[in-house]
C-alpha cells in the first residue's frame, strides 16, 4: 500500500504544481531515459458502478510503445480500468467516473471528446473472440470502410497488411471470402487483433485475449504481441502471471480496486515492494 500512498502524495503535488507535472510511478527510470513518454495518464481516476467504486483513485502513466500488463485477482477492477480507456464502459448505464483520464493530453471523459474517434485511435480485443458473422475480408475491411475507405485496392492492401501484422495472413490468404466464424478460436482472436489494427490505432487494449484459447493459440497471440511491441502502446489484462511476465515491459497490479503496485515487470515479479503483490504473485491467493 506504500505505493498508493506515495502516488496520492504526488498527485497532490501535481494538482498544486500544475506546470511541472511529475510522472506518476515511473515504471522504469532507465526506460524513461530511453525516451518513454506517457500516452495515457490517470489522475485520481475512479470508476463507479452505481455506488460501488470498482476502481479507486488510480494514478498512473502508461508509457507509449510499451507493453503494459494489468494483473490482479478476479473482480479487482482491472478489466473495468482497461475498458475505461476507450470508453467501453459507456455501454453500462450505471457506470460513471471521477478524476481524469488523459489520452495524448485530451481528457477521455471530456465533454467534447468524440468517442467514435477515440475508439478508432484506441483499438480493443476482447476476452472472447468476437468476429462479425461475415467473411474474413469484410471483418478486417469493416473498420476502414466505416471511416470512409471504399477503394477496393486500398482495402485489399489494408486487409493484407493487417493480417500480416496479426500473423494470420499465411493461414487465411486463400480463403478471405469465407465466413470468419469457420476459423478456429485462436485464428478468430488473431483476426480480431487484425481487425483492430486495420483502423491503425495508437493504443491496443487486450482484455484477457488468451483466456478462451488453448496453449498453442496462446503462444501465437503472445508471439503476435512480441511482433507488435514497439509499434503500438499495448495494454493487456491477464489472469496468467507467467504471461504477464513473458510479454510485458511494465506491470500494474490491482487489488480490490486499488492500483497497488506499478513497476517494470521484472522488478514487480522478482522484487515486489508490497506484501499483497508478493502474496498474489507467489500464489498465496488468487
Amino acid at each position: 500500500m506504500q505505493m498508493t500512498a506515495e502516488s496520492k502524495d504526488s498527485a497532490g503535488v501535481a494538482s498544486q504544481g500544475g506546470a511541472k507535472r511529475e510522472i506518476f510511478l515511473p515504471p522504469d527510470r532507465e526506460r524513461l531515459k530511453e525516451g518513454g513518454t506517457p500516452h495515457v495518464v490517470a489522475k485520481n481516476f475512479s470508476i463507479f458502478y452505481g455506488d460501488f467504486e470498482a476502481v479507486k483513485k488510480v494514478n498512473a502513466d502508461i508509457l507509449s510503445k510499451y507493453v503494459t500488463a494489468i494483473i490482479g485477482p478476479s473482480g479487482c477492477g482491472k478489466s473495468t480500468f482497461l475498458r475505461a480507456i476507450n470508453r467501453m464502459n459507456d455501454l453500462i448505464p450505471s457506470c460513471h467516473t471521477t478524476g481524469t483520464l488523459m489520452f495524448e493530453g485530451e481528457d477521455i471523459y471530456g465533454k467534447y471528446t468524440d468517442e467514435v474517434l477515440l475508439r478508432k485511435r484506441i483499438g480493443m480485443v476482447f476476452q472472447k473472440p468476437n468476429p462479425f458473422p461475415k467473411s474474413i475480408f469484410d471483418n478486417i475491411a469493416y473498420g476502414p470502410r466505416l471511416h470512409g475507405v471504399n477503394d477496393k485496392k486500398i482495402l485489399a492492401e489494408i486487409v493484407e497488411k493487417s493480417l500480416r501484422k496479426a500473423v494470420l495472413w499465411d493461414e487465411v490468404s486463400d480463403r478471405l471470402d469465407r465466413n470468419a466464424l469457420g476459423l478456429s478460436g485462436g485464428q478468430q482472436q488473431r483476426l480480431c487483433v487484425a481487425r483492430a489494427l486495420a483502423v491503425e490505432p495508437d493504443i491496443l487494449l487486450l482484455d484477457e485475449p488468451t483466456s478462451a484459447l488453448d496453449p498453442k493459440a496462446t503462444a501465437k497471440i503472445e508471439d503476435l504481441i512480441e511482433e507488435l511491441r514497439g509499434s503500438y502502446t499495448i495494454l493487456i489484462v491477464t489472469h496468467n502471471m507467467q504471461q504477464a511476465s513473458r510479454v510485458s515491459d511494465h506491470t500494474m497490479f490491482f487489488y480490490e480496486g486499488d492500483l497497488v503496485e506499478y513497476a517494470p515487470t521484472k522488478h514487480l515479479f522478482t522484487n515486489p515492494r508490497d506484501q499483497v503483490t508478493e502474496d498474489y504473485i507467489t500464489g498465496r491467493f488468487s
Partner: protein
Amino acid sequence: MNKSAGKSVARSSSGRGRTIDIVNKGLKSRYRKEKRFRFYGLLSIVASVVFLAFLLSSIVLKGYSAFLQTYIKLDVSFEAGMLDKQNPGRSDFQGIVKAAIRDYYPDVTGRQDKRDLFSLFSSGAAFQLREEVLNKLPEEGSSISLWVLADDDVDMLMKGHMKRDVPEGERRLNDKQLRWIERLEEEGRIALRFNTTFFTAGDSREPELAGIWGAVKGSFYTMLVTLVLSFPIGIAAAVYLEEFAPKNLATDFIEVNINNLAAVPSIVFGLLGLAVFLNFFGMPRSTPLVGGIVLMLMTLPTIIIASRAALKAVPPSIREAALGVGSSKLQVVTGHVLPLALPGMLTGTIIGMAQALGETAPLLMIGMVAFIVDVPGGFTDPAAVMPVQIYLWADSPERAFVERTSAAIMVLLAFLISMNAVAVVMRRRFERRW
C-alpha cells in the same frame, strides 16, 4: 500416499453412507421422475395433435364439397326478337332462360308449378347466359347448350345433404321438383363441377353465387396496409427504445404501456378507430385502409415486444466489436444489431400479422362487417375480410352456407400458411450462424 488413500476410503465406507450410496439410492427415483415427466410431455403432444386433427378433419370434411357445384345443362335457342340487337347486353336474359326451361319441360303448366320449376335454377343462370352471349353473339335461330348454375337446394340434394326419402314436408324440394331433377339425372344433364364461382365472386345472398374472392382481396389489402405501417413503425420504436432511449421513468412508463396495449381487447382498438379515423379524420367506412390502420394499432405492441426481445438477444460482444473499431451507435445498429435481430423481428411480425388476419372484433366497429357483393379493387373500396366473411356465412340460415363456411376457413388457413411461408423463407435468408 497409498496408505493414507486406502485409509480414507476405508473410513468413508465404514461411516454411514458414502456419497455413492446416497446417489445410488436416489438414482431410481430420479429416473422415474424423468420418465414420468417425459410421459406427461408426450401425452400433451398427443392430445394437442388429436385436437388439431379433429378440428382440421371436421373442417375439411364439411367444407370440401363447397369446391364442387351442381350445374344443369340447358339448351337455349335464340329466336327472333329475343336478343336486343342494338344492345345485346340489355336483352331479357331471365326471359330467355325461362323460355329454355319451358322448352325442356313442356308438360309443366300452372303458375305454382312453373315457379317451382324455375326455382331449380339459380338466378345466376341469366348472368351466365349474358356473359356467354356477350362473348360470342349467337345468330338468330341458332341454339347453344350451356351448363348453368343450379339453385342451392338442388345443389344440397345432389351432394346428399338433403334426403330424398323423407316425407315431402320435411324437405325444401317437393316431390314434383324431385321428379324433374330425376329426369335431368337420367339424361345426364345435371352434374357436379368445379366451383369456380367460389373463387372468383364476392359475397351473395344466394349461396351458389357467393364466393370468397372478395374477402380474400379485402384481407390482402388490409394486411398490406397493416404490414406496411406496423413493420417499420414497430421496428423503429423497438430499436429506439432498446438502443437509444435513456433508461428513465418516461421510458419505463412507455414500456409498461406497450405491454399493456398488447393485452387490450381488440374491440377497443375498433372503437378507437371508429372515433379517430372515421369520425375525426373522416376516412371512408368499411375499407381496407381503415381496417389496416386499426389492425396496425393492434399489431404494433406485439411487433415491438418481439423486436425488443430479438434486439436484447444480440450478443453484446458484437456491439463491443463494432464499437471497438470506431462505429457510431447508428452504424452498430444498422450494420450489426439489426441484421442479427431481423429473424426474431420477422417472427414477431408473423405472429402479429397472423393475429390481425383472424381478427373480426375491431373491424365490427369500422363497418367492415357489412354485406359487400363487389370484389374490392383498391384500398378505399368497401370490402369484407375473410374472418368476417366466415362469420357472416356461419350466421346465414341456408344449408349451403355451412359448407361454404368451412371452405372459407380452409381458404383462410391457406392464406395464413402462405403468408407464414413467405416470412419463414425471408427469415431463413436473414438468419446467420453464430
